Protein backbone atom coordinates (compact mmCIF):
# COMPACT_ATOMS: atom_id res chain seq x y z
CA UNK A 1 0.00 0.00 0.00
CA UNK A 2 2.99 2.31 0.44
CA UNK A 3 3.34 2.57 -3.31
CA UNK A 4 -0.26 3.76 -3.66
CA UNK A 5 0.31 6.45 -1.02
CA UNK A 6 3.43 7.51 -2.87
CA UNK A 7 1.58 7.68 -6.20
CA UNK A 8 -1.22 9.69 -4.63
CA UNK A 9 1.25 12.19 -3.15
CA UNK A 10 3.10 12.47 -6.45
CA UNK A 11 -0.15 13.03 -8.33
CA UNK A 12 -1.14 16.02 -6.21
CA UNK A 13 2.31 17.20 -5.16
CA UNK A 14 3.42 18.39 -8.59
CA UNK A 15 6.37 17.25 -10.62
CA UNK A 16 9.99 17.35 -9.49
CA UNK A 17 11.18 18.27 -12.96
CA UNK A 18 12.47 21.86 -13.16
CA UNK A 19 11.48 23.84 -16.19
CA UNK A 20 14.06 25.95 -17.99
CA UNK A 21 15.72 28.24 -16.85
CA UNK A 22 15.44 26.89 -13.28
CA UNK A 23 18.46 24.90 -12.12
CA UNK A 24 18.78 22.22 -9.44
CA UNK A 25 20.46 23.07 -6.14
CA UNK A 26 24.06 21.96 -5.83
CA UNK A 27 25.86 20.27 -2.96
CA UNK A 28 28.80 21.78 -1.10
CA UNK A 29 31.38 19.69 -2.92
CA UNK A 30 29.79 20.14 -6.32
CA UNK A 31 32.34 20.11 -9.15
CA UNK A 32 31.50 22.96 -11.50
CA UNK A 33 33.59 25.06 -13.89
CA UNK A 34 37.34 25.08 -13.36
CA UNK A 35 38.62 28.47 -12.17
CA UNK A 36 42.15 29.52 -13.00
CA UNK A 37 44.27 31.90 -10.90
CA UNK A 38 47.16 33.20 -13.05
CA UNK A 39 48.81 34.75 -9.99
CA UNK A 40 49.48 31.33 -8.52
CA UNK A 41 50.18 29.34 -11.68
CA UNK A 42 53.74 28.23 -12.17
CA UNK A 43 53.18 26.96 -15.73
CA UNK A 44 54.12 23.38 -14.91
CA UNK A 45 51.36 22.08 -17.31
CA UNK A 46 50.51 19.16 -15.05
CA UNK A 47 46.83 20.08 -15.45
CA UNK A 48 47.12 19.69 -19.21
CA UNK A 49 48.62 16.21 -18.83
CA UNK A 50 45.99 15.16 -16.31
CA UNK A 51 43.10 16.38 -18.46
CA UNK A 52 41.89 13.26 -20.29
CA UNK A 53 39.10 15.09 -22.08
CA UNK A 54 41.51 17.66 -23.53
CA UNK A 55 39.54 20.57 -22.15
CA UNK A 56 42.79 22.21 -20.96
CA UNK A 57 45.42 23.18 -23.49
CA UNK A 58 48.81 24.64 -22.76
CA UNK A 59 51.25 26.30 -25.12
CA UNK A 60 54.69 27.32 -24.02
CA UNK A 61 56.13 30.52 -25.53
CA UNK A 62 59.13 32.72 -25.05
CA UNK A 63 58.94 34.17 -21.56
CA UNK A 64 55.23 33.40 -21.32
CA UNK A 65 52.75 30.59 -21.69
CA UNK A 66 49.12 30.33 -22.85
CA UNK A 67 46.63 28.34 -20.82
CA UNK A 68 43.16 27.62 -22.21
CA UNK A 69 40.11 25.91 -20.77
CA UNK A 70 37.05 24.84 -22.78
CA UNK A 71 34.12 23.82 -20.49
CA UNK A 72 32.35 22.37 -23.52
CA UNK A 73 34.87 19.54 -23.48
CA UNK A 74 35.29 19.28 -19.72
CA UNK A 75 33.91 16.26 -17.86
CA UNK A 76 34.34 18.04 -14.49
CA UNK A 77 36.33 15.13 -13.11
CA UNK A 78 38.49 17.43 -11.00
CA UNK A 79 41.78 15.67 -11.73
CA UNK A 80 43.40 18.95 -12.84
CA UNK A 81 42.48 20.59 -9.52
CA UNK A 82 43.81 17.60 -7.58
CA UNK A 83 47.11 17.67 -9.43
CA UNK A 84 47.78 21.43 -9.18
CA UNK A 85 50.51 21.78 -6.55
CA UNK A 86 50.37 25.60 -6.67
CA UNK A 87 46.60 25.60 -5.99
CA UNK A 88 46.06 27.78 -9.03
CA UNK A 89 43.00 25.73 -10.05
CA UNK A 90 39.69 25.36 -8.23
CA UNK A 91 36.15 24.35 -9.13
CA UNK A 92 33.02 26.45 -8.76
CA UNK A 93 30.25 25.16 -6.51
CA UNK A 94 27.58 26.09 -9.05
CA UNK A 95 26.03 24.66 -12.19
CA UNK A 96 27.81 25.75 -15.38
CA UNK A 97 25.89 28.53 -17.13
CA UNK A 98 23.72 27.79 -20.16
CA UNK A 99 25.42 28.69 -23.43
CA UNK A 100 24.14 28.77 -26.98
CA UNK A 101 27.26 28.75 -29.15
CA UNK A 102 30.16 26.33 -29.27
CA UNK A 103 33.19 27.57 -27.34
CA UNK A 104 31.26 30.44 -25.73
CA UNK A 105 32.59 29.68 -22.28
CA UNK A 106 36.14 29.04 -23.42
CA UNK A 107 38.79 31.11 -21.60
CA UNK A 108 42.38 31.74 -22.60
CA UNK A 109 45.05 33.29 -20.39
CA UNK A 110 48.51 34.42 -21.45
CA UNK A 111 50.73 34.47 -18.40
CA UNK A 112 54.29 35.80 -18.10
CA UNK A 113 56.65 33.07 -17.00
CA UNK A 114 58.18 33.70 -13.63
CA UNK A 115 61.94 33.92 -13.30
CA UNK A 116 63.38 30.81 -11.70
CA UNK A 117 64.33 31.16 -8.09
CA UNK A 118 68.06 31.84 -7.69
CA UNK A 119 70.10 28.97 -6.36
CA UNK A 120 71.43 30.75 -3.33
CA UNK A 121 71.93 29.94 0.31
CA UNK A 122 68.80 28.88 2.17
CA UNK A 123 69.02 32.02 4.31
CA UNK A 124 67.58 34.12 1.43
CA UNK A 125 63.79 34.42 1.84
CA UNK A 126 61.77 32.82 -0.96
CA UNK A 127 59.36 35.74 -1.39
CA UNK A 128 62.18 38.09 -2.24
CA UNK A 129 63.32 35.84 -5.09
CA UNK A 130 60.05 35.95 -7.02
CA UNK A 131 58.76 38.96 -8.96
CA UNK A 132 55.92 40.96 -7.46
CA UNK A 133 53.31 40.06 -10.02
CA UNK A 134 53.51 38.34 -13.40
CA UNK A 135 52.26 40.01 -16.54
CA UNK A 136 48.71 38.88 -17.21
CA UNK A 137 46.52 39.10 -20.24
CA UNK A 138 43.14 37.46 -20.50
CA UNK A 139 41.93 36.89 -24.03
CA UNK A 140 38.20 36.43 -24.57
CA UNK A 141 36.92 33.30 -26.24
CA UNK A 142 37.43 33.11 -29.96
CA UNK A 143 35.33 30.12 -30.81
CA UNK A 144 37.81 27.47 -29.88
CA UNK A 145 40.77 26.26 -31.79
CA UNK A 146 41.80 23.01 -30.19
Amino acid sequence: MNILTMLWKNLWGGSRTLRFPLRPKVTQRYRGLVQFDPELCTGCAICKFRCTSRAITYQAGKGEFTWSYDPGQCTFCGRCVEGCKAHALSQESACPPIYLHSGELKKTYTVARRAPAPKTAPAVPKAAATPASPKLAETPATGGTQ
Partner: protein
Amino acid sequence: MNMTTALARLLIFPGILFAVPAAWFFLWVERKAVALMQGRIGPPFMQPFYDFVKLLGKDTPPRSGIAGGLMRAWPLIAVSTAAGAVGLLPVLPASGGFQGDLILLLALLEVPSICIIAAGFSSRSLFGEIGSAREAVLSVSYNVVFLLAIVSVAASQHTFRLEALAQMPPSPLLWLGILAILICLPAKLHLNPFSLPNAEQEIYSGPMVEFAGPELAMWELSHGLEWVAATGLVATLIAPHITLWWAAAIVFVALSFGIVLLLSAIAAATARLAIDTTVRFYWQCTLIFAVLAVSSALFMRLRS
Protein backbone atom coordinates in the same frame (compact mmCIF):
# COMPACT_ATOMS: atom_id res chain seq x y z
CA MET B 1 -27.74 -4.27 -39.50
CA ASN B 2 -27.86 -2.82 -43.01
CA MET B 3 -24.87 -1.73 -45.06
CA THR B 4 -25.24 1.99 -44.28
CA THR B 5 -25.31 1.40 -40.52
CA ALA B 6 -22.37 -0.96 -40.75
CA LEU B 7 -20.31 1.58 -42.74
CA ALA B 8 -21.28 4.42 -40.41
CA ARG B 9 -20.20 2.35 -37.40
CA LEU B 10 -16.96 1.29 -39.03
CA LEU B 11 -15.99 4.67 -40.50
CA ILE B 12 -17.54 7.28 -38.18
CA PHE B 13 -18.58 6.24 -34.66
CA PRO B 14 -17.18 4.31 -32.88
CA GLY B 15 -15.08 3.48 -35.94
CA ILE B 16 -12.11 5.20 -37.55
CA LEU B 17 -13.20 8.87 -37.32
CA PHE B 18 -13.65 8.54 -33.56
CA ALA B 19 -11.22 5.72 -32.83
CA VAL B 20 -8.04 7.26 -34.30
CA PRO B 21 -8.16 10.52 -32.29
CA ALA B 22 -9.34 8.49 -29.28
CA ALA B 23 -6.33 6.19 -29.71
CA TRP B 24 -3.93 9.15 -29.58
CA PHE B 25 -5.87 10.62 -26.64
CA PHE B 26 -5.74 7.38 -24.64
CA LEU B 27 -2.04 6.93 -25.38
CA TRP B 28 -1.47 10.47 -24.10
CA VAL B 29 -3.64 9.90 -21.00
CA GLU B 30 -1.70 6.76 -20.14
CA ARG B 31 1.71 8.41 -20.56
CA LYS B 32 0.67 11.58 -18.76
CA ALA B 33 -1.01 9.75 -15.87
CA VAL B 34 2.00 7.50 -15.31
CA ALA B 35 4.32 10.53 -15.46
CA LEU B 36 2.27 12.51 -12.94
CA MET B 37 2.16 9.55 -10.58
CA GLN B 38 5.93 9.23 -10.84
CA GLY B 39 6.54 12.93 -10.16
CA ARG B 40 7.36 13.85 -13.76
CA ILE B 41 5.76 16.38 -16.11
CA GLY B 42 4.87 14.00 -18.93
CA PRO B 43 4.31 14.65 -22.64
CA PRO B 44 2.24 17.54 -24.03
CA PHE B 45 -1.31 16.84 -25.21
CA MET B 46 -0.50 16.52 -28.91
CA GLN B 47 2.62 14.36 -28.47
CA PRO B 48 1.21 11.00 -29.74
CA PHE B 49 -0.11 12.79 -32.85
CA TYR B 50 3.26 14.54 -33.40
CA ASP B 51 5.05 11.20 -32.98
CA PHE B 52 2.76 9.63 -35.57
CA VAL B 53 3.27 12.42 -38.11
CA LYS B 54 7.04 12.48 -37.53
CA LEU B 55 7.31 8.73 -38.06
CA LEU B 56 5.24 8.95 -41.25
CA GLY B 57 7.79 11.39 -42.65
CA LYS B 58 10.79 9.15 -42.02
CA ASP B 59 12.36 6.66 -44.38
CA THR B 60 12.07 2.92 -43.94
CA PRO B 61 15.14 0.74 -44.44
CA PRO B 62 14.95 -1.02 -47.83
CA ARG B 63 13.83 -4.61 -47.42
CA SER B 64 13.37 -7.12 -50.17
CA GLY B 65 11.82 -10.54 -50.53
CA ILE B 66 8.98 -12.16 -48.65
CA ALA B 67 10.25 -11.05 -45.22
CA GLY B 68 10.25 -7.42 -46.37
CA GLY B 69 6.71 -7.69 -47.71
CA LEU B 70 5.53 -9.33 -44.51
CA MET B 71 7.14 -6.65 -42.38
CA ARG B 72 5.21 -4.03 -44.33
CA ALA B 73 1.97 -6.04 -44.10
CA TRP B 74 1.83 -6.93 -40.38
CA PRO B 75 1.32 -3.39 -39.03
CA LEU B 76 -1.36 -2.67 -41.64
CA ILE B 77 -3.25 -5.85 -40.75
CA ALA B 78 -2.95 -4.97 -37.05
CA VAL B 79 -4.35 -1.45 -37.62
CA SER B 80 -7.25 -2.61 -39.78
CA THR B 81 -8.31 -5.39 -37.39
CA ALA B 82 -8.04 -3.16 -34.32
CA ALA B 83 -10.13 -0.49 -36.11
CA GLY B 84 -12.65 -3.18 -37.06
CA ALA B 85 -12.86 -4.32 -33.44
CA VAL B 86 -13.63 -0.75 -32.31
CA GLY B 87 -16.29 -0.47 -35.02
CA LEU B 88 -18.10 -3.53 -33.65
CA LEU B 89 -18.56 -2.10 -30.15
CA PRO B 90 -22.27 -1.51 -29.39
CA VAL B 91 -21.82 2.03 -28.06
CA LEU B 92 -24.99 3.66 -29.34
CA PRO B 93 -28.44 2.35 -28.37
CA ALA B 94 -30.14 0.21 -31.01
CA SER B 95 -26.95 0.23 -33.05
CA GLY B 96 -27.68 -3.06 -34.69
CA GLY B 97 -25.13 -5.84 -34.67
CA PHE B 98 -25.65 -9.47 -35.61
CA GLN B 99 -25.72 -12.84 -33.93
CA GLY B 100 -22.15 -13.91 -33.25
CA ASP B 101 -20.55 -10.46 -33.43
CA LEU B 102 -18.99 -11.11 -30.00
CA ILE B 103 -16.96 -13.97 -31.48
CA LEU B 104 -15.86 -11.74 -34.37
CA LEU B 105 -14.85 -9.01 -31.88
CA LEU B 106 -12.76 -11.47 -29.85
CA ALA B 107 -11.10 -12.73 -33.01
CA LEU B 108 -10.33 -9.19 -34.21
CA LEU B 109 -8.92 -8.27 -30.80
CA GLU B 110 -6.56 -11.21 -31.02
CA VAL B 111 -5.21 -10.48 -34.51
CA PRO B 112 -2.90 -7.55 -33.50
CA SER B 113 -1.25 -9.84 -30.96
CA ILE B 114 -0.70 -12.51 -33.63
CA CYS B 115 0.69 -9.82 -35.97
CA ILE B 116 3.18 -8.75 -33.30
CA ILE B 117 4.33 -12.35 -32.85
CA ALA B 118 4.71 -12.81 -36.60
CA ALA B 119 6.43 -9.43 -37.01
CA GLY B 120 9.08 -10.25 -34.44
CA PHE B 121 9.93 -13.51 -36.18
CA SER B 122 9.81 -11.88 -39.64
CA SER B 123 12.34 -9.26 -38.56
CA ARG B 124 14.97 -11.97 -37.94
CA SER B 125 16.25 -9.99 -34.99
CA LEU B 126 17.31 -11.83 -31.86
CA PHE B 127 15.49 -9.29 -29.68
CA GLY B 128 12.44 -9.47 -31.94
CA GLU B 129 12.32 -13.23 -31.67
CA ILE B 130 12.65 -13.14 -27.88
CA GLY B 131 9.83 -10.56 -27.71
CA SER B 132 7.65 -12.63 -30.02
CA ALA B 133 8.22 -15.77 -27.98
CA ARG B 134 7.27 -13.85 -24.84
CA GLU B 135 4.17 -12.44 -26.51
CA ALA B 136 3.13 -15.94 -27.63
CA VAL B 137 3.53 -17.40 -24.14
CA LEU B 138 1.75 -14.43 -22.57
CA SER B 139 -1.07 -14.63 -25.11
CA VAL B 140 -1.69 -18.30 -24.36
CA SER B 141 -1.69 -17.57 -20.62
CA TYR B 142 -4.05 -14.63 -20.37
CA ASN B 143 -6.40 -15.61 -23.19
CA VAL B 144 -7.69 -18.60 -21.22
CA VAL B 145 -8.99 -16.27 -18.55
CA PHE B 146 -10.02 -13.52 -21.00
CA LEU B 147 -12.04 -15.75 -23.30
CA LEU B 148 -13.60 -17.86 -20.54
CA ALA B 149 -14.71 -14.72 -18.71
CA ILE B 150 -16.42 -13.24 -21.78
CA VAL B 151 -17.86 -16.51 -23.02
CA SER B 152 -19.30 -17.38 -19.60
CA VAL B 153 -21.06 -13.99 -19.43
CA ALA B 154 -22.39 -14.55 -22.95
CA ALA B 155 -23.45 -18.13 -22.22
CA SER B 156 -25.49 -17.02 -19.22
CA GLN B 157 -27.50 -14.76 -21.56
CA HIS B 158 -27.96 -17.46 -24.25
CA THR B 159 -26.50 -15.13 -26.88
CA PHE B 160 -23.28 -14.15 -28.60
CA ARG B 161 -24.68 -10.80 -29.65
CA LEU B 162 -22.79 -7.81 -28.24
CA GLU B 163 -25.82 -5.55 -27.98
CA ALA B 164 -27.60 -8.08 -25.76
CA LEU B 165 -24.57 -8.23 -23.48
CA ALA B 166 -24.35 -4.44 -23.34
CA GLN B 167 -27.98 -4.28 -22.16
CA MET B 168 -27.48 -7.04 -19.60
CA PRO B 169 -28.57 -5.96 -16.08
CA PRO B 170 -25.80 -5.89 -13.45
CA SER B 171 -25.25 -9.25 -11.77
CA PRO B 172 -22.46 -10.89 -9.73
CA LEU B 173 -21.52 -12.94 -12.79
CA LEU B 174 -21.16 -9.82 -14.93
CA TRP B 175 -18.94 -8.13 -12.36
CA LEU B 176 -16.87 -11.30 -11.98
CA GLY B 177 -16.40 -11.39 -15.74
CA ILE B 178 -15.46 -7.68 -15.85
CA LEU B 179 -12.93 -8.19 -13.05
CA ALA B 180 -11.36 -11.12 -14.91
CA ILE B 181 -11.18 -9.04 -18.12
CA LEU B 182 -9.59 -6.13 -16.22
CA ILE B 183 -6.92 -8.47 -14.87
CA CYS B 184 -6.13 -9.55 -18.43
CA LEU B 185 -6.03 -6.04 -19.93
CA PRO B 186 -2.50 -5.07 -18.71
CA ALA B 187 -1.13 -8.16 -20.47
CA LYS B 188 -3.17 -7.49 -23.60
CA LEU B 189 -2.02 -3.87 -23.74
CA HIS B 190 1.60 -4.64 -22.77
CA LEU B 191 1.46 -2.64 -19.57
CA ASN B 192 3.36 -3.16 -16.35
CA PRO B 193 3.59 -5.62 -14.65
CA PHE B 194 3.07 -7.70 -17.81
CA SER B 195 5.05 -5.60 -20.30
CA LEU B 196 7.44 -8.45 -21.10
CA PRO B 197 7.15 -8.58 -24.90
CA ASN B 198 8.07 -4.91 -25.38
CA ALA B 199 10.59 -4.54 -22.54
CA GLU B 200 12.61 -1.48 -23.61
CA GLN B 201 15.71 -1.95 -21.48
CA GLU B 202 16.01 -5.73 -21.75
CA ILE B 203 15.19 -6.50 -25.37
CA TYR B 204 14.89 -3.04 -26.97
CA SER B 205 11.09 -3.18 -27.38
CA GLY B 206 11.25 -6.77 -28.68
CA PRO B 207 9.26 -7.28 -31.91
CA MET B 208 9.35 -3.53 -32.71
CA VAL B 209 13.14 -3.28 -32.72
CA GLU B 210 13.58 -3.55 -36.49
CA PHE B 211 10.64 -1.30 -37.40
CA ALA B 212 11.02 2.36 -38.28
CA GLY B 213 9.19 5.19 -40.04
CA PRO B 214 5.63 4.64 -41.31
CA GLU B 215 5.65 0.97 -40.24
CA LEU B 216 6.40 1.95 -36.64
CA ALA B 217 3.75 4.69 -36.89
CA MET B 218 1.21 2.02 -37.86
CA TRP B 219 2.28 -0.14 -34.89
CA GLU B 220 1.78 2.84 -32.56
CA LEU B 221 -1.64 3.49 -34.08
CA SER B 222 -2.67 -0.15 -33.77
CA HIS B 223 -1.57 -0.10 -30.13
CA GLY B 224 -3.73 2.98 -29.54
CA LEU B 225 -6.69 1.36 -31.29
CA GLU B 226 -6.23 -1.73 -29.12
CA TRP B 227 -6.53 0.59 -26.13
CA VAL B 228 -9.80 1.98 -27.46
CA ALA B 229 -11.19 -1.47 -28.31
CA ALA B 230 -10.18 -3.19 -25.07
CA THR B 231 -11.25 -0.40 -22.73
CA GLY B 232 -14.35 0.15 -24.86
CA LEU B 233 -15.35 -3.51 -24.47
CA VAL B 234 -15.27 -3.17 -20.68
CA ALA B 235 -17.02 0.21 -20.87
CA THR B 236 -19.91 -1.23 -22.91
CA LEU B 237 -20.32 -4.05 -20.37
CA ILE B 238 -20.30 -1.63 -17.42
CA ALA B 239 -22.36 1.18 -18.99
CA PRO B 240 -26.02 1.37 -17.98
CA HIS B 241 -28.62 1.16 -20.74
CA ILE B 242 -29.21 4.72 -22.00
CA THR B 243 -31.62 5.55 -24.80
CA LEU B 244 -30.21 8.98 -25.71
CA TRP B 245 -27.42 8.43 -28.24
CA TRP B 246 -25.31 11.42 -27.16
CA ALA B 247 -25.58 10.48 -23.48
CA ALA B 248 -24.58 6.90 -24.35
CA ALA B 249 -21.55 8.22 -26.27
CA ILE B 250 -20.49 10.47 -23.38
CA VAL B 251 -20.86 7.65 -20.83
CA PHE B 252 -18.84 5.35 -23.10
CA VAL B 253 -15.98 7.86 -23.39
CA ALA B 254 -16.04 8.67 -19.66
CA LEU B 255 -15.96 5.00 -18.64
CA SER B 256 -13.16 4.24 -21.12
CA PHE B 257 -11.23 7.19 -19.71
CA GLY B 258 -11.71 5.87 -16.18
CA ILE B 259 -10.46 2.41 -17.19
CA VAL B 260 -7.39 3.96 -18.85
CA LEU B 261 -6.64 5.82 -15.61
CA LEU B 262 -7.06 2.62 -13.59
CA LEU B 263 -4.70 0.68 -15.87
CA SER B 264 -2.20 3.57 -15.78
CA ALA B 265 -2.23 3.51 -11.98
CA ILE B 266 -1.54 -0.24 -12.03
CA ALA B 267 1.30 0.32 -14.52
CA ALA B 268 2.82 3.09 -12.39
CA ALA B 269 2.55 1.11 -9.16
CA THR B 270 4.16 -2.10 -10.39
CA ALA B 271 7.43 -3.29 -11.85
CA ARG B 272 7.84 -5.72 -14.73
CA LEU B 273 7.50 -9.37 -13.74
CA ALA B 274 9.56 -12.22 -15.14
CA ILE B 275 7.94 -14.48 -17.72
CA ASP B 276 7.63 -17.51 -15.41
CA THR B 277 6.01 -15.42 -12.67
CA THR B 278 3.57 -13.93 -15.19
CA VAL B 279 2.56 -17.30 -16.59
CA ARG B 280 2.16 -18.76 -13.10
CA PHE B 281 0.04 -15.76 -12.12
CA TYR B 282 -2.39 -16.25 -14.98
CA TRP B 283 -2.58 -20.01 -14.83
CA GLN B 284 -2.79 -20.37 -11.05
CA CYS B 285 -4.43 -17.22 -9.69
CA THR B 286 -6.72 -15.74 -12.29
CA LEU B 287 -7.93 -19.11 -13.53
CA ILE B 288 -9.96 -19.08 -10.33
CA PHE B 289 -11.94 -16.14 -11.71
CA ALA B 290 -12.67 -17.97 -14.92
CA VAL B 291 -13.74 -21.17 -13.15
CA LEU B 292 -16.03 -19.14 -10.90
CA ALA B 293 -17.46 -17.33 -13.92
CA VAL B 294 -18.11 -20.54 -15.85
CA SER B 295 -19.74 -22.23 -12.86
CA SER B 296 -21.91 -19.16 -12.24
CA ALA B 297 -22.91 -19.10 -15.89
CA LEU B 298 -23.91 -22.76 -15.78
CA PHE B 299 -25.85 -22.17 -12.57
CA MET B 300 -27.70 -19.20 -14.09
CA ARG B 301 -28.45 -21.16 -17.23
CA LEU B 302 -29.82 -24.15 -15.31
CA ARG B 303 -31.94 -21.89 -13.13
CA SER B 304 -33.51 -20.05 -16.06
